[in-house]
């Protein structure tokens, strides 16, 4: 059974991947609308 720490770490990694994707798009000159981009990931809406 995964511990709370494992779940938290997994969530952090998912968030890093999402942020990295945003940076990739931004650096390609294709930065999406922030609110639309955030809306794609409702589970992370309240995370910084």
């Amino acid at each position: 059974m995964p511990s709370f720490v494992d779940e938290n770490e997994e969530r952090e990694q998912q968030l890093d991947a999402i942020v990295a994707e945003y940076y990739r798009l931004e650096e390609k000159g294709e930065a999406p609308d922030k609110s639309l981009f955030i809306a794609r990931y409702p589970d992370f809406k309240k995370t910084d």
Partner: protein
Amino acid sequence: MRVSTGDNVAPDLDQYRSYLMLLADLQLNPQLKVKEGASDIVQQTMLEAHRDFAGFRGKTDAELRAWLKMILTHNLQSVAKHYGRDKPAAGREVSLQDQLEQSSALLHRQLVADQTSPSMKLMKQERVDQLADALLKLLVDERSDVVLKYYHNWSNAEIAQHLGRTQEAVAGLLRRGLKKLRNYLSEES
């Protein structure tokens, strides 16, 4: 904060080493650091500060920081001149020199030059010092990524390649670093 300068004996200048390292990191082009390390320039700055401390007329911590930054700026400019003078045929070196000179000139205007009233200058310097102190509280990896991204305007891909990280790792370090910076700066303001 006042500094003890009795008998023109230098206080413990080593406590400013990290601060100067950060400023040198901010000013040096990261590619240039392969040849001319920030630590070498800071070491030279510390040696000159000890040697010339009798000439320091300030009394406060802020004045001492400004004086150290002036010496550091001079040394950074010397590095720029060195690369420009010794390798005129190398286009890349000239480009690095240009970048460093621009950066040093900006540092000079921001931190040293007397272009504003003394009170404005002090306020600006305090803000720079606050940001520098906040950056120094970050983890080394967080700080290097934040500096490359937001000071040198590198892309995440460039940072990832330069530091041997994945872009996801860079994104995470930036995210956590910026969050900490916001917290530190809001605590101080």
